[in-house]
């Protein structure tokens, strides 16, 4: 019985989220989402999917929550790609890979990192950051700035 209920709950969660792995909760200034070659203006409530790239202008910031309760925010003049996001709400196992190409990023890790410490990675032009359950900030300053 317990297994049946767990299966039903998982199916329910999967159906609700479908391809959506996260959601825009805050946005200010110029922000858009690149998805499959399209540039979509970001709006509060907009679902975020794997392979989306968040792009902000000089006055832009955006905050996103993810299905495992991870939180991200991106500062002005930034490009952040969501390379991979997979999360099993039953086991809390998953994989979250993001790449900060430029600008600034704030991260609060979620349930999957609590479950397995190697679940989340952030790539930058020079480094790979392995997240062991924490809050952290990353900044890439353009040469000459």
């Amino acid at each position, binding site marked *: *019985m*317990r297994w049946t*209920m767990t299966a039903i*709950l998982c199916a*329910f969660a999967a159906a*609700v989220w479908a391809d959506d792995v996260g*959601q825009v*909760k*805050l*946005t*200010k200034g110029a922000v858009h989402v690149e998805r499959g070659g399209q540039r979509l203006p970001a709006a*509060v*409530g907009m679902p975020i999917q794997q392979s989306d790239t968040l792009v902000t202008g000089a006055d832009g*910031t*955006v*905050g*996103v*929550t993810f299905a495992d*309760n991870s*939180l*991200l*925010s*991106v*500062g*002005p003049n930034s490009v952040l790609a969501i390379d991979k996001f997979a999360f099993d709400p039953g086991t809390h196992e998953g994989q979250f890979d993001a790449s900060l190409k*430029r600008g*600034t*990023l*704030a991260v*609060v*890790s*979620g349930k999957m990192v609590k479950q397995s410490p190697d679940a989340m990675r952030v790539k*930058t*032009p*020079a*480094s*790979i*950051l*392995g*997240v*062991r*359950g*924490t*809050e*952290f*900030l*990353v*900044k*890439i*300053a*353009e*040469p*000459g700035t």
Partner: protein
Amino acid sequence: MTARAVGVILALMACSCAAPPIAEETVVVLPGPDGKTGAVVVQREGARQVLDQPYAANVVRADGRSEGARFSEQQVNQSFGATLSALPARPTAFLLYFLTARDELTAESTSDLDKVLADMKTRPVPDIVVIGHTDSVGTADANDKLSVQRAERVKGFLTGIGIPSDRIRTAGRGERELLVPTGDNVDEPRNRRVEINVR
């Protein structure tokens, strides 16, 4: 110094000048709201640094040099203020307790409800999951129904303050997930509850 040595030095200088400047990178670890600091492992060309102290940082300079650093709270706000201000509210969980065999809140939880609703109001597009539970008194079937009723009751409070119902998922777990493990037919107030998770 021989002409040859000067030549080598000049060649080395030319070499380092020719290397394209790379973007300066900064990673800073923050203490969590509970005061505990996690860790970030910074890996770069075989080198590995673990940042696990509050405000510990790793900086890669434009010449490729990498060094450890410690930020002040003020420096963090200067460099990352705009980014931090866009961070969504932290996901939270609440518990509300119910009277025996009913979908009415206890007096204490009735007053807690205001706090819960106040938190919900601060979130622009909340994702809410409401899960009802019962104690082990009564049949499993009756408790399944009661737990759903309790969850729906709480959903009613939330929609009552204007939260759209499509942002709220409800489920009833009956007596399957006792918060306080007991035998069957045990009247345990802490098991008569609804769990509210909001993100």
